């Protein structure tokens, strides 16, 4: 038993090796190397245009890469077909713009994945969906459509939609950037809760307090490169690079 758990630990949930990507002339990801261990919360910060969102999106191939390797639990990320959809089903993704399905109720948004992809029967999918909606605090909205919910409620429902797939890891791509200030915390609270329960998470965010409080490790990106990475206290209190110092100074102004 002990051996097995040690072996498990040695395989990171997500691993990026020498990942490069261009958008036309723009070199958006430069030799990215990154591992995310099981149960780890990795927070990615950096100025806008630093490539942090793009990196996050490469992990379930919403963006393709030019070269390098992406491994999910040691397996290379498939490029297409059923292998790819299966892999995606195991990775949750939460978007800046929530991206709930506009024509479906919140409940249907959450049950769609389990029913279509995992083949869960309707009543079981709905029971589980209601549990999740309860957990993120939008159970009362289950029968409404997305446009009837506030941004914060939509984002929490979107998190429930991802969780319904019982993902191995969750990616958050600036989950609070499109929210009114008073709604940011309700979403962050759900994420803190998830982190506490041991979910493996990659979070791209501008919320420094969240990073400091929840992150196991902080990655600072600029110009498509990982400039610095380390424990949150160490990074925020003693940034090693000038780039990171400048960035932290610039956001302190706010």
């Amino acid at each position, binding site marked *: 038993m002990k051996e097995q758990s040690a072996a498990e630990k040695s395989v990171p949930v997500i691993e990026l090796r020498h990942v490069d990507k261009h958008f*036309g002339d723009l070199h958006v990801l430069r030799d990215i190397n990154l591992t995310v261990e099981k149960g780890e919360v990795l927070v990615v910060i950096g100025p*806008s245009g630093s*490539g942090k*969102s793009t990196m996050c999106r490469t992990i379930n191939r919403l963006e393709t890469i030019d070269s390098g390797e992406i491994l999910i639990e040691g397996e290379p990320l498939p490029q297409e077909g059923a292998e790819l959809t299966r892999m995606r089903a195991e990775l949750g993704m939460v978007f800046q713009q929530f991206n709930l399905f506009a024509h479906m109720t919140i409940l249907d948004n959450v049950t769609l994945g389990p029913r279509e992809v995992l083949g869960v029967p309707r009543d079981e999918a709905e029971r589980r969906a209601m549990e999740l909606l309860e957990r993120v605090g939008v159970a009362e909205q289950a029968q409404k459509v997305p446009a009837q919910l506030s941004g914060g409620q939509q984002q929490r429902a979107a998190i429930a939609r991802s969780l319904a797939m019982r993902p191995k890891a969750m990616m958050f791509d600036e989950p609070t950037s499109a929210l009114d200030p008073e709604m940011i915390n309700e979403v962050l609270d759900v994420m803190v809760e998830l982190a506490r329960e041991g979910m493996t998470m990659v979070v791209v965010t501008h919320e420094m307090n969240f990073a400091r409080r929840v992150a196991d490790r902080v990655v600072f990106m600029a110009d498509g490169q990982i400039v610095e990475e380390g424990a949150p206290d160490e990074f925020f209190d003693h940034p090693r690079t000038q780039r990171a110092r400048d960035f932290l100074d610039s956001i302190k102004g706010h």
Partner: protein
Amino acid sequence: MSRANSATSMRDALYEAPGPRTRRKIVVGTVISLALVALGVAAVIRQFYVTGQLAPRYWSFLLEWTTWRFLLQGLMGTVQVALTAGVIALVLGLLLMLGRTSGVRPLSALCRVVTDFFRGVPSLLLIYFFFFVPAQLGLKMPSFWMLTLPVALAASGVLAEVFRAGVNAVPRGQVEAAMSIGLSSAKTMFKIVLPQAVRYVIPSLIAQLVVVVKDTTVAYVVSYPDLMQNARVLITSYDALVSMYLVVAVIYILINYLINRASVYIANKTGVKIIR
């Protein structure tokens, strides 16, 4: 954040970047569909060939300057009708919209009925009306107006609705601000709302010109010499029906295509939506 290459149109966004297997399938599909398209084109050309329609005598008159001069004359007729009808429709459409939004009950109802009437009736019916009725009443109407008036009336109903959509697109706050500085409702409409509304609807107005141009094609009903009518004259003199009609159709398509492009160009440039 910077997603310079992210799909700009949904039809590309439907597909993700293909993997090697998908890429192969796309190549195969492209080749097969290209073959099918080529086959279709070949079948059409073959049909032209076996029916003798590719014979030089059906096409040689297109090399003559007189042909094009005559068509150009017709085109000028088309342009005259279209522009005149367009201007009349603009004025009428604006009046109908102003009447409908005036707040004066009977006027508003009347304008609404008139608008719906012209929108709900085929322009051909209106053309027959101007072809038959004035003559029955003993009025002698030039063929230009027998064509221009019905085309204008048909368009005015649509334009009234376009204008109304434009007025509705002006933010409510503008009206409130104008009222709060003491402008009368008429002044608010003419000084504040309309100038902005017109800016919103310019691309839509241009797009409607396509409908006007299309409607003018029935000029032959009233024997007005437009592009289509002149083409018919050429057909009888050269006995080249298929080629002539195809050429005329292409001319109309190009004109309307260019009008549409102009409309879209201005819409994109000014960031407004085209109302249809």
